[in-house]
């Protein structure tokens, strides 16, 4: 009697252990190495074209700005490596030069980075097959940028799920490395560029986002959100410059979401 209960308990524990073991290795059936390698190389190749070109023009300007403000080269490169968000990096340079306090600078940079929350939430499902999250996804989140987001949101859905993470790492690491080199070149030789060429470069990154988002957003609700956000952006900026990015996202996004729901509801009734 006592013995059989003990045996049952042992069996139950074994079952739990085996379940734990299988949940600990969500990627037990990893894709073959050559598939991963080819996908990563495709990502590198895709990024080596226009996506890194656009980032390079932005980071050349950033390097030149940092050098102009007599900030250290080490800090400038670390900024690209650890913050990896040009708006936040520019805020940091400007506020540090103005002599704002440590705490206020950190708070402002942190607030400017809130956009990564909705961007990451919308993006992550593309990178995982089930709702399982591993350290790879936390590493992937650090490499996310607007450029990578806009590109991969349109390209990844057409790709087999097993190749996406490798492609993404190849793509984003290429962007990161070329931006680091650009920050350095900009720091050393940035003011050699004529002023009008610098202006043209500054305009090219928003144009890149404009083309890729308007041309590659396939879902109706996504397009609706783009239009609503584009209308809200400048209007909200007139009211509150500091909060304009976040507020135009929340207002424009909510309006688009509600309109889409409303129309879906109506067509279902009809």
């Amino acid at each position, binding site marked *: 009697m006592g013995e059989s209960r003990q045996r049952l308990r042992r069996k139950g524990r074994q079952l739990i252990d085996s379940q734990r073991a299988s949940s600990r290795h969500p990627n037990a059936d990893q894709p073959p190495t050559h598939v991963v390698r080819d996908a990563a190389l495709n990502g590198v190749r895709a990024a080596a074209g*226009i996506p890194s070109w*656009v980032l390079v023009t932005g980071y050349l300007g950033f390097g030149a700005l940092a050098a102009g403000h007599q900030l*250290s080269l*080490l*800090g400038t490169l670390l*900024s690209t490596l*650890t913050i990896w968000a040009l708006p*936040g990096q*520019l805020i*940091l340079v400007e506020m540090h030069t103005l002599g704002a306090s440590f705490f206020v600078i*950190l708070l402002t940079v*942190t607030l400017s*980075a*809130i*956009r*990564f929350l909705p*961007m*990451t*939430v*919308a*993006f*992550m499902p593309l990178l995982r097959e089930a*709702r*399982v*999250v591993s350290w790879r996804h936390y590493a992937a*989140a*650090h490499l996310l940028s*607007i450029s990578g987001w806009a590109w991969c949101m349109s390209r990844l859905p057409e790709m087999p799920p097993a190749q996406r993470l490798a492609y993404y790492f190849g793509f984003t690491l290429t962007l990161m490395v070329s931006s680091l080199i650009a920050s350095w070149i900009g720091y050393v030789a940035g003011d050699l560029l004529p002023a009008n060429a610098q*202006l043209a*470069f*500054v*305009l*090219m990154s*928003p*144009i*890149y*986002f*404009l083309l*890729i*988002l*308007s*041309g590659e957003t396939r879902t109706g*609700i*996504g397009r609706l*959100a783009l239009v*609503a956000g*584009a209308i809200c952006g*400048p209007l909200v*900026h007139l009211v509150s*410059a500091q909060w*304009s*990015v976040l507020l*135009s*996202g*929340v*207002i*424009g*996004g*909510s309006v688009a*979401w509600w309109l889409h729901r409303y129309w879906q509801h109506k067509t279902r009734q009809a």
Partner: protein
Amino acid sequence: MFLINDSYAYLVVLAGVCTYFWRAAGVAVAAKISTESALFSWISCVAFAMLAGLISRVIFLPTGSLEATALWERLASAGVALIVYFFLTRKNLLLGVISSGATLYALRLLS
């Protein structure tokens, strides 16, 4: 060590940690909610609208060096990019982006 005197480098790394907080939070939230849920589609809408708002704000009300350009110059550059991308080429991103930069450069030289 050279790091010790570089207060800017410390500030940069701290700012990087603060930025990463939102990225990690995004991964954690994404793991909790289903892509079919209303909350997920709302958050996606916010992400799309945020970026679109950022782009149109830079074109209509730029801050920084683009303030030196006129609104019509920026609109013309964006218009040329859209025409090249959608009508003249079959969605060639490289030509679209470069044409906008070239347009702004040419307009600045002429003015």
